[in-house]
């Protein structure tokens, strides 16, 4: 009984006239977990979420909540709640009436509604605002009211459609942590959609990367970051230096490649099935690249070269170095080590750099 997933989609599809927005997506969200769907704008995230909430009927496939198909359950009867992108708080009611709205629809008694509203407002850190109007709250507070309004109904699944999109950067950072805390406190299953990878990476237990209506990969943040299964995921999650190259020799998973600029690379066939002559996309993370002032330090790394510093983008712990390869002029970005060993590096200096073949992930080039 305990291993029935809270939410399960089976080959769920949605077609608008001639356009297929969601293509046969299947996934399970275990109870009490934070599941994110990450994808670029227009990839079908909202469509998928609206099907789960019941505002749009799937063209085909099945949707189960706690093991029970909910396809023919109307949205006002589904045990899911949704936090809308622009929150959709009711401006004609005060905060208390907003949060108590769902309970009132269930016919709960007045005194009990008040007690429950007060309790849930306290849990989101907004005790005593019940009598205020919606307009009198700040953006972050409204956010929490919107969550409280759903959580008071104790839904099986809470759906969130880019709820942080409307907030400014600073508040967004704060709300990320806040949301994660609320999720573990309420111990409710969250399905969260976003196009901001850092939101997904920080908060989620599991992330699905979505592109053009399909899930490219489902995994933990670390899996997506260190072992992306497709070129899209490698490029979308985290930073990466990208090359287009041709495979010149293949030995099992070990590849030798030649980029368009004529650099020879040693890499790992991450997608599988690359043969000599195939066009490939190559991804190298900036933090996988080691820097040194002596050529000897990087020589044995498999991929090594020397570069001239083009610019230093100092940003505290996220500082980057843009190098220009001395041999062929190709640009490459490298994460600056945080030890401060390279703090005196200036534009025009020459440094040596290199990285392991295992950090060079190669995928079949699309198209």
């Amino acid at each position: 009984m305990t291993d029935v997933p809270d939410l399960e989609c089976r080959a769920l599809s949605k077609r608008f006239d001639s356009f297929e927005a969601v293509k046969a997506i299947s996934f399970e969200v275990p109870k009490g977990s934070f599941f994110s769907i990450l994808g670029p704008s227009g990839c079908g995230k909202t469509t998928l979420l609206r099907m789960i909430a019941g505002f749009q009927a799937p063209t085909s496939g099945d949707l189960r909540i706690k093991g029970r198909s909910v396809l023919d359950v109307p949205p006002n009867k589904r045990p899911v709640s949704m936090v809308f992108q622009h929150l959709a708080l009711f401006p004609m009611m005060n905060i208390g009436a907003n949060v108590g709205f769902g309970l009132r629809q269930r016919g709960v008694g007045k005194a009990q509604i008040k007690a429950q509203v007060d309790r849930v407002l306290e849990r989101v850190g907004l005790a005593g605002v019940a009598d205020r109007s919606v307009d009198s709250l700040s953006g972050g507070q409204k956010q929490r009211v919107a969550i409280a309004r759903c959580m008071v109904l104790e839904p099986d699944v809470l759906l969130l459609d880019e709820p942080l999109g409307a907030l400014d950067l600073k508040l967004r950072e704060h709300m990320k942590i806040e949301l994660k805390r609320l999720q573990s406190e309420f111990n409710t299953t969250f399905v969260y959609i976003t196009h901001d990878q850092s939101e997904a990476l920080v908060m989620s237990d599991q992330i699905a990367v979505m592109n053009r209506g399909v899930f490219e990969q489902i995994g933990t943040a670390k899996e997506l970051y260190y072992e992306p299964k497709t070129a899209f995921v490698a490029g979308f999650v985290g930073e990466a230096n990208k090359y287009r190259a041709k495979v010149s020799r293949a030995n099992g998973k070990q590849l030798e490649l030649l980029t368009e600029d004529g650099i020879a690379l040693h890499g790992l066939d991450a997608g599988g099935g690359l043969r000599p002559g195939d066009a490939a996309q190559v991804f190298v993370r900036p933090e996988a690249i080691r820097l040194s002032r002596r050529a000897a330090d990087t020589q044995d790394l498999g991929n090594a070269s020397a570069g001239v510093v083009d610019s230093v983008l100092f940003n505290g712990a996220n500082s980057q170095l843009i190098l220009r390869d001395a041999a062929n002029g190709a640009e490459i970005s490298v994460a600056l080590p945080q030890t401060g060993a390279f703090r005196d590096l200036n534009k025009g200096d020459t440094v040596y750099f290199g990285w392991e073949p295992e950090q060079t992930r190669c995928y079949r080039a699309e198209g």
Partner: protein
Amino acid sequence: MSKDGSRLGLILLMAPLLLWLVTLIILPHIGLFVVSLSEKVGVRTYETGFGNYAVFFTEPLYWNTFARTAYMSIMATALTLLIGFPVAYYIAKLTRGRSKTTLFLMCLIPFWVSELVRTFGWMILLRETGVLSSFLQYLGVINGPVEFLYNDFAIMTGLVYTSMLFMVVPLVTTLDSLDDSLIEAGYDLGASSLSILREIIIPHAMPGIVSGCIVVFMLSLGNYLTPILLGGKDSLWFTGLIYSQFITRFNWELGSAFGFLLLGLSSVIVFAALKLTGQSLGKTMGR
């Protein structure tokens, strides 16, 4: 210089409005008010006093007519709202793009012909030898010609028909500004369609409802053509009473007093209705 200049600009901008207010509204009303205060005591002898106003309250026919006019106008307003709301909701929320414009225009089309022609149109439909009567005879529902004109039903039909646009336009405007996600959020939180209508849609549309109702009520109360033509001699409409004082009886003094009573009493009714429903004019106009 710039201060004087901006003041001059303001005066110039306000001039048409002020001219309109003063010459067409304030001056005639002052004149009427002065006339309404003069009582006829003999041939060509007049006294100043509120006698004309007293006549209204002492003569049952007059205030009965007013009460009936007000009652019918309130009913017409309520009916217009009841019919106009679904229409406005449909136009604002359930249609998009071209079909929205088309529907909106269809509400407007009847207003391209004059009120007189429109009312005669209804007379053609409703009179004894008219379309409705003939059709019902053809169906065999009735077996002789029936007069549908010259009753309250005909007046009501005409009033609702004439007022519809003035209800639909403000309703469409306010309903248009209602965010669809509020309605979806309502469903998501478990509400039925009825409680969404009651708790979300109607409160949001309230400014439109109030302004639509005020306009329709005032238009119906002050309507002359429709009640007279569709209601006939016995329509007992207050504007008809005023007309006959001025034109038939040549009693301008009483007519003026009635005019002012109409203005005052209708304002009182609107004010009372606003108070009763907990709305305020400022809130309505402010949005």
